[in-house]
């Protein structure tokens, strides 16, 4: 039997979902992280606890929320609390094992930008801004980042540090409760911070992707590990669960007029 066909977005979500371990408490950003975190819950980590910044804790949505405040999240939650409480009692107090984030830009030290492209005073593109990300990046035990791999997103220096990885100089995490980015999953590769320098280093490639393609999609001189791992391709079951989730989601969002 041949391997099932899949898209680069599908392998990104599936590899990201495999990072969550059963029973972990995960603070989920909307978009790509929400898709991967719910895929994990529906496949490899059924008892993962998902928290959204809307105050929905232990939620098990049947379809992906379009916004972080969809009714589905509240209806399927173990408990619902206010926004001040979710950030203070649950995130800041250290009850979150994993933060799951995306961004418009990332640099070699895992710092994330979701604020502006260009200068702050005269932005080329005004992005939505911080939301819950800075404190998730600071206080979650570790941070999983996922974003599509392009030269525009993987940049030498982010235009704005919205959320701290290891700081602009890679100097570290002093003053932060959590240990920072542990892994970055893209549609091409897997990157991890070097244990000494903290610089993001390619440690894995998705099947069929070569190192040159990853380098050409990165805005800095990318470090590559000696012992590169080739990602296990998505299984038929993983793909079926992901596609089912996305189909249910599309139908639900179109119907809610």
């Amino acid at each position, binding site marked *: 039997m041949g391997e099932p066909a899949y898209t680069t977005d599908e392998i990104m979500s599936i590899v990201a979902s495999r990072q969550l371990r059963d029973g972990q408490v995960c603070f989920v950003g909307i978009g790509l992280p929400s898709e991967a975190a719910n895929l994990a819950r529906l496949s490899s980590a059924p008892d993962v606890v998902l928290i959204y910044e809307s105050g929905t804790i232990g939620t098990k949505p049947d379809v992906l929320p*379009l*916004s972080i*405040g969809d009714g589905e999240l*509240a209806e399927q939650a173990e408990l619902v609390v206010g926004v001040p409480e979710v950030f203070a009692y649950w995130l800041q107090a250290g009850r979150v094992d994993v933060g799951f984030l995306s961004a418009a830009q990332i640099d070699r030290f895992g710092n994330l930008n979701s604020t502006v492209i260009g200068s702050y005073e005269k932005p080329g593109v005004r992005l*939505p801004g911080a*939301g819950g990300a800075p404190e998730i990046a*600071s206080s979650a035990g570790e941070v999983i980042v996922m974003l599509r791999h392009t030269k525009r997103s993987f940049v030498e220096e982010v235009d704005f540090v919205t959320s701290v990885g290891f700081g602009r100089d890679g100097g570290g995490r002093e003053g932060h409760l959590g240990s920072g980015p542990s892994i970055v999953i893209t549609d091409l590769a897997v990157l991890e911070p070097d244990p000494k320098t903290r610089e993001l280093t390619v440690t894995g490639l998705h099947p069929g992707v070569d190192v040159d393609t990853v380098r050409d999609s990165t805005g800095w001189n990318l470090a590559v590990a000696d012992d590169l791992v080739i990602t296990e391709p998505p299984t038929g079951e993983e793909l079926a669960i992901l596609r089912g989730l996305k189909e249910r989601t599309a139908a639900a969002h179109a119907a809610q007029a």
Partner: protein
Amino acid sequence: MGQFTSLSDAISDLVYDGAAVALEGFTHLIPFAAGHEVIRQSKKELTLIRLTPDVIYDQMIGMGCARKLVFSWGGNPGVGSLHRLRDAVENAHPGPLEIEEHSHAGMAARYSAGASGLPFGVLRGYLGTDLEERTNVARIECPFTGESLSAVPAINPDVTVIHAQQADRKGNIGIWGITGVQREIALAARAVLVTVEEIVDDLQPRGPNFAVLPAWTVDAVAHVPRGSHPSYSMGYTTRDNPFYTMWDVISRDRSLFDDWMKEYILSRDFDGYLAALDDGSILEMASNG
């Protein structure tokens, strides 16, 4: 004490040019009908405060109601950009817009401080971010442990407007589901207006996280069923996701936005808006445009 009133009278009485106003609701229970009424009454020079400006402030900013925006996440949730907000920040259209941005945790701490009557809130946040030098935050030392923490100034709006599911006949407010920051920002405000889905004999929660705002913490109550559209009111309405998607088309283009606002907000009351929603005509400009 919460006086039952019409929405137009409440906005006219409480919201004045130059006021600092918070129309809150974290994706759920956003007081859209009240925002429309602010636009109809041509309020100007407002400082608009909200964690997520959402379509409600995109409409108010695009119509020139705002001088300043205080916020923490300015996107169209699940869809993309708020184009009227971006046009104001990037191109000063329809006028310059001062912005003051925070993180959600920082805004929540500011609201909680406001509700507590304290001058500032404290959190572990902002450390190492570029927000630290761009916004209203200071580092302080804990007098007990010496730990370095972030202080953010309290927010006490002149007027807070929220939408809730129920009011009883005495004006007590019942609210449930995702209650976001509404209790804090209501208790922080100098005046509070609540629009409600239903007026009932006894408050009856139909979902988790039930909270009550006693009548004596509220100034005005207006009965506005479906007043949170296109967001939702758990137990009464569902989120209109196609509307949020449509807004991306309408708000992208200045003249289309102006035409849409004139047709569906300025030339009708909220019942007229709902009628256009129910017969589907409210979506027409987006598909024709």
